[in-house]
């Protein structure tokens, strides 16, 4: 469905994306992971035709470069990380903007378009919010509204830039579960940049690890998410845990061990703290001066 060949995006002398080749099969969910600045969002913007780039993007066998914007919008729908929320626009009006590529340039929505969008809101569980103004929505409601607008485009490719970043824990699962249901119902190809590695592992069919604009590795979540590799590219320490139900959990682990015992009146860094890295404990050590007058520093 989606073929990227030799994609390079340069900001001046810096390559934000450098020679990326990537393919996504029909109905596949590809998760883009990587540290901040790895080029995940930029790559999504390339596929959304928002970013000047070198290399070719083919969608459904056709080169994206020669496509009209209208035609492109019928093939690719894009949900940005923080969608604009125009004041005074209702959720239903917002969802109907997604019909734009199917309506003549100077036309307006038909009754069928309205019905379609109302049904979409219902499917996404926000039928009751159709008349609400966008700025009054919660993060989870806004996410669904944005999804409704994207789905209204009836495009086979759905791009999601950090779809969970504005959501709390329960809403993250719900939102991605919804995307997964819709993907299966409608045979959508989903490409998402996703920060949360645990969710990435549990929802994506395939993960692509990007660092410095290049693909480091790609494959099944269990192959890509290895502790040493993640430590190398993300910095910090992580544990990859297989829970009993077969889900992978990627958890950040603090390098320095937390002091558990303040009983002997020693402040942090005064011997009771153990660190694998001596530099860390020295940097973090408190000096008596920090503690001020009346401190409990042993004399």
């Amino acid at each position: 469905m989606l073929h990227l060949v030799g994609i390079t995006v340069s900001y001046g002398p810096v390559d934000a994306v450098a020679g990326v080749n990537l393919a996504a099969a029909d109905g596949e969910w590809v998760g883009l992971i990587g540290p901040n600045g790895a080029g995940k969002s930029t790559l999504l913007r390339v596929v959304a035709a928002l970013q000047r780039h070198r290399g070719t993007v083919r969608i459904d066998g056709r080169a994206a470069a020669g496509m009209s914007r209208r035609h492109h919008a019928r093939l690719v729908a894009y949900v940005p990380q923080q969608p604009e929320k125009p004041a005074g626009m209702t959720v239903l009006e917002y969802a109907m903007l997604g019909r734009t590529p199917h309506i003549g340039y100077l036309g307006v929505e038909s009754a069928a378009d309205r019905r379609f969008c109302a049904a979409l809101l219902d499917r996404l569980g926000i039928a009751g919010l159709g008349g609400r103004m966008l700025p009054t929505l919660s993060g989870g409601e806004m996410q669904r509204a944005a999804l409704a607008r994207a789905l209204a485009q009836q495009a086979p490719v759905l791009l999601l830039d950090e779809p969970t970043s504005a959501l709390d824990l329960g809403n993250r699962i719900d939102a991605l579960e919804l995307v997964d249901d819709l993907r299966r119902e409608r045979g959508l190809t989903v490409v998402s940049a996703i920060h949360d590695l645990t969710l990435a592992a549990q929802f994506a069919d395939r993960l692509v690890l990007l660092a410095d604009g290049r693909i480091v590795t790609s494959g099944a979540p269990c192959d890509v998410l290895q502790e040493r590799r993640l430590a190398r590219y993300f910095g910090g320490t992580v544990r990859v845990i297989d829970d009993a139900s077969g889900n992978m959990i990627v958890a950040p682990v603090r390098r320095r061990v937390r002091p558990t015992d303040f009983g002997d009146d020693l402040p942090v860094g005064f011997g009771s703290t153990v660190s694998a890295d001596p530099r860390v404990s020295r940097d973090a050590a408190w000096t008596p001066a920090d503690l001020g007058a009346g401190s409990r520093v042993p004399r």
Partner: protein
Amino acid sequence: MTLDRVLHKSGAGREAPAGNAARSAQVPGVDATAETVRRSRVRLPVLVSAVILVLSMVLSIALGAVTISPADQISTLLGHLPLIGFHSGVAPIEQAIIWDLRLPRVVLATLVGAMLAGGGAAYQGVLRNSLADPYLLGVAAGAGLGATVVIVLGGAGTPILPVAAFAGAVAAVALTYTVAAAGTERAGGYALILAGVAAAAMLTAIQTYLQQQHADQMRQIYNWILGSFAVASWSDVWTVAPYIAISVVVLLAHRRILDVLRVGGDEATTLGVDPRRAGLVIIGAATLGTAAAVSVSGLIGFVGIVAPHAVRLVAGASYRVVLPVSMICGGAFLVLADLVARTVQAPAEVPIGVITAFVGGPFFLLVLRSRRSRHGVL
């Protein structure tokens, strides 16, 4: 099941039973509401504002040195309709007052008001800046310079004056666009606004210099800039009507595109709209109409900001409502402002720009304090 949880969480479970039933494509309740809401949202405000406009026009034709009843107005109008051969019993002098003096003046005020308000709404939509008005990209400064040049050359009151004002306005916006195009691509609307400010400052400087050099014509220049319909005639109406008509038609045709542009350039692009091309067409049309309007009326301020914002607060922010209703209300506003301008110090006339600003400012504050403004409609 997750879907059930999703439905319940968002509160939609009250409307539709969760599970498979909720998946059906037809949702009668939602659909019916959606349909009625959309229709009445446009029709009712258009109807109400149209009634206000007609009443304003009738009132404005009625009042003045000679008071003329609505019945006489109607029979005079009928008498001027071709083919039906209606003979009104209205005295010829009153007919002349209605047909040759007040009616063209009222019609011209309506056209100019509609254009300034519609142009303001369009500029605000494309530039996504609620302080944008139709003069922002240099229309006023360019028209002012064009008019000043003609007046200092002794052409005040000649047919060259509106032509020069029109040319100056269009040239100023072209200059703004050229300067903005040289700016960075990412700056988008801001580059255009900054270029507009720069172009306006430059042109105003030249205009002020010319004005100072020709102190004897200062009063004429000043009167033109403050705006007036005192010498409005049918020929003025026919001169600007085609431009304003084209502009209004193009803007109204873009009402849905303006709604798409509300989500910003990037998102509009992913929805299949080229924001640059659409913006250029809309700004071009708004500029053409505005330039034509100011060429016969002078620089009447405040209409382009007050009318669209008042409409947004009362009738909603969609451009399907804002554009047509702003145009009608802008027309009514200017008709009433002109009525005040010519009656309050009769037989002398107050510049209409003074009235629009004096009335528009407090009215705007009043609207801003209303309930809807606190709900973030602006």
